[in-house]
């Protein structure tokens, strides 16, 4: 077993009473006071997550934009300096190496990738980079905090300059937070408004501590709440909904694939799947009786298996079992009556629309 890494906020987590678990090679806080309270705090006020385990890869040099356009699925020419874009790094068969956010900054492109995929992403991007384009893995030196929830700006304003709350969704700016020079981006993985704050690793505790002492301080929130929050809004998780075994199309990510221009690895398969359909599609399912679906559970209709759960949990917002699953197209419409085999017991269920919860901007409170 390899040694687990700790983020610069490990001490803060322990002090806050976190339960620590191994995750993607890191010792990370899975929960503090309890996943349900943390989840509901992010939906109603705001929560603070340590996501320093995620990866940051800089791509610089003449031709960096053209290079990234040739290896990422989305159209990166549509973002200018200070803008972020959800995109995917595809393999040669159209499978997914990772899903990520690409940022266009003044002096570089920044790829923020999943913790478990830092090495494959660095290897892929480096191996394809042409002369003149430099790829630097900055992950070990960069910490990232996610401040998420409708009152995020009230928590951040007292310690940030310039005030960041006029920043549009999916845009990033340089700002000083608790005296630390940061990149602040209006991004996140919860479905709620909020920001992700990137800073030098050693400076993260100062930001964490400052946020915890403002009047409307966020609730420390762990990886368990991060997972239930993203599931309720249907954000795919690499390794569950995404992997080398399927293209982004069946996951409903056609919007993040520039099929009109193509040219990236696997584009032909994605164009074909978008035109002809796929053998299954990702849907959101809620149980209509008590029970909790889990990854791997069979999805049934009329006694036949029609799909498989890829992520399942108890939805703290809805108070019912909820899942993301791949099902055959015949059963992928909202309202389709299904059942899920939960350890031998068939639980009645229904395909529901995404997001499963109200995350509309009107919930946001600025002042």
């Amino acid at each position: 077993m390899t040694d687990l890494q700790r983020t610069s906020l490990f001490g803060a987590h322990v002090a806050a009473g976190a339960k620590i678990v191994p995750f993607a090679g890191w010792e990370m806080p899975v929960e503090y006071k309890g996943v349900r309270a943390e989840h509901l705090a992010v939906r109603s006020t705001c929560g603070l997550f340590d996501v320093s385990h995620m990866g940051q890869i800089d791509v610089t040099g003449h031709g960096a934009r053209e290079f990234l356009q040739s290896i990422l699925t989305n159209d990166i020419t549509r973002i200018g300096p200070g803008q972020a874009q959800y995109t995917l790094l595809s393999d040669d068969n159209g499978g997914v190496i990772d899903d990520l956010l690409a940022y266009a900054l003044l002096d570089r492109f920044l790829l923020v990738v999943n913790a478990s995929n830092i090495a494959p992403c660095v290897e892929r991007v480096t191996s394809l980079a042409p002369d003149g384009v430099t790829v630097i893995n900055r992950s070990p030196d960069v910490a990232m905090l996610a401040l998420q929830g409708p009152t995020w700006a009230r928590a951040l304003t007292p310690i940030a300059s310039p005030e960041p709350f006029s920043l549009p969704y999916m845009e990033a700016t340089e700002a000083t937070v608790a005296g630390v020079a940061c990149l602040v981006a209006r991004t996140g993985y919860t479905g709620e408004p909020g920001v992700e704050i990137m800073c030098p690793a050693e400076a993260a505790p100062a930001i964490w501590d400052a946020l915890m002492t403002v009047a409307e301080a966020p609730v420390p929130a762990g990886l368990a709440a991060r997972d239930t929050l993203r599931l309720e809004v249907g954000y795919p998780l690499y390794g569950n909904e995404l992997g080398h075994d399927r293209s982004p199309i069946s996951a409903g990510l056609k919007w993040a694939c520039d099929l009109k221009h193509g040219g990236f690895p696997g584009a032909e398969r994605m164009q074909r799947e978008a035109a002809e359909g796929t053998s299954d599609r990702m849907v959101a399912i809620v149980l209509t009786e008590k029970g909790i679906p889990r990854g791997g559970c069979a999805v049934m209709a009329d006694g036949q298996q029609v799909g498989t759960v890829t992520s399942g949990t108890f939805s703290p917002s809805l108070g019912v079992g909820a899942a993301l699953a791949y099902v055959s197209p015949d059963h992928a419409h909202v309202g389709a009556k299904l059942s899920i085999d939960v350890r031998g017991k068939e639980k009645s269920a229904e395909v529901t629309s995404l997001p499963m919860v109200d995350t509309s901007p009107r919930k946001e409170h600025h002042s």
Partner: protein
Amino acid sequence: MSDETYPGDLHYHPEHDWVRVDGDEATFGVTWFAQDALGEVVYYDPPAVGDSVTAGQSYGELESVKAVSDIIAPACGEVIAVNDAVSDTPELVNNDPYGAGWLIKVRLSTASELGALMDEPAYRQYLAGLAG
């Protein structure tokens, strides 16, 4: 969440279940250690009244957001009551594991098997060994 306690009037099973004996009837539940390891309980799948339960075997499930845990019967018997309050409010298991968070009542089939269970000092020693 409750404070860590292990009442002296209970018998304990190594799978972190307790039994409170009252004549030929008994109440089953899970220990403070069990609920702490599981985290906030959000679902209880109980047996039905009239079901038989067997010592050392699962008679139901408790689930947290992240995990499923079989509930192991500390003794054999027939289910005579199920705590519906826990079905409706599963976090009772966290808040009061030895009181309002009880899981089932059974009519014991053989009281003698209780001798295989631990008393409070033995269970505490067992937990200390797990912490190793």
